[in-house]
């Protein structure tokens, strides 16, 4: 079991990659560029675009847009900082006291994308 989350892993031609977490922060991040004959087995390939000839077996293959409001600790790893009213905003709640707006609560969620 190995991990290359948030970074570019190094592969060799024909390598079988088994039980790795290869989660990337930004959707459709290419990994293994220029490497042929890769086989991924039971890996987390979230946000990864693998080479076209790669064999993917029992892996998570979704693309997900992460919100930096939910994952501020990932900004230092390269997650782009979101605006206050970003695409991940799902709900806004205003708190009024004595006719005065004292707080606006914003709720966000990560979104699975195509």
């Amino acid at each position, binding site marked *: 079991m190995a991990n290359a989350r948030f970074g570019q892993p190094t592969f060799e031609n024909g390598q079988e990659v088994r039980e790795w977490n290869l989660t990337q922060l930004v959707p459709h991040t290419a990994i293994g560029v220029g490497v042929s004959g890769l086989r991924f087995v039971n890996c*987390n390939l979230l946000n990864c675009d693998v080479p076209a000839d790669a064999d993917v077996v029992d892996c998570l293959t979704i693309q997900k847009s992460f919100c930096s409001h939910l994952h501020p600790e990932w900004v230092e790893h390269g997650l782009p900082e979101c605006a206050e009213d970003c695409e991940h905003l799902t709900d806004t709640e205003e708190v009024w006291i004595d006719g005065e707006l004292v707080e606006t609560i914003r709720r966000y969620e990560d979104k699975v994308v195509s």
Partner: protein
Amino acid sequence: MPSTYYVDPAATGAADGSSWTDAWTSLQTAADTATAGDIIYCRGTQTLAAAIDIDTNNGTASAPIKVIGCNASGAVDGTRFTLNGNSAATNCIQISAALGKYWWFVNINCTSATGAGIALASNGGDGRIWVNCVSQNNGSYGWNLYTTTTNGTVVLIGCQSLNNSNAGFYTPYYGIIYFGCTSIGNSGDGFAGASGVNWGMVIHSVSHNNTGDGVNIPGKGLVFGSVIDENGGDGIEFSSAAPYIMLALGNRITGNGTGGTGYGIRGTSTGLAFYGWNFFLNNDGVTSGDCHSIPYDADADTNETSGTEGYTDGDNDDFNLTSSATLRSVAIEID
């Protein structure tokens, strides 16, 4: 009279759940049928388009509903029944708010959900026990263990959370006990809680190679006899405010926070903490004068023994242990 049901996605019989031959092909059917005291045996792999919802019946404290994975022959030998989210289902197992109490899960593997592999909804988390279950390669938490009552105890024994795209084990609230569990390779904390008044116990467990903290308990917490190794953040972070008490005893805390961003143990709030008989080495990515353990200490004195500040045991080398120091007290053996 309790009933026994069978689930096998490859079965081709009468599909009435009465035997392996006539097994139901979906755990959902069994979950909607079982009542207190019933046992559901499962084998093989079920590919999911949507989560298995545990939202129909409760067990009881004396008669829980049990879901047990079996091998291909139908025997219980530790082989897991797999629920494959197939990059489509939001969760593999989702347990509802009001129902789904007193369910036990044994030998279950949850993989490739777009969200958390296992999600427990808010309210009423009573009596859920997980044994030898795995949650791996999911698009969020491995386990999202939401309970909202002080007695909403969830117990995990010998479970694993591997390579998920957020924390391995996460609880936003109360009452989680981890015994002999393993959290490895997750994109977040190994064992995590949200800020608030939750509590948790991490006992004889392993947190390794996660991007965040090895264990992050912002409420009342105990970390005992565990290995917390090579995580990206702190080994253990306690951040509870007074009057909550936090204990870290007899742990191996090594190689965390490489790059100078983490500590062996970090206390960041006013709660009373006691750390003892822990073994620290090579935390914070420093090769000498390393292994920091910094409890909250508002007035910057040492060896607080009362009040709400962190307590440091000056008689032991639990803090600021250098690579050349004599180790006076270690409760676990390091190979």
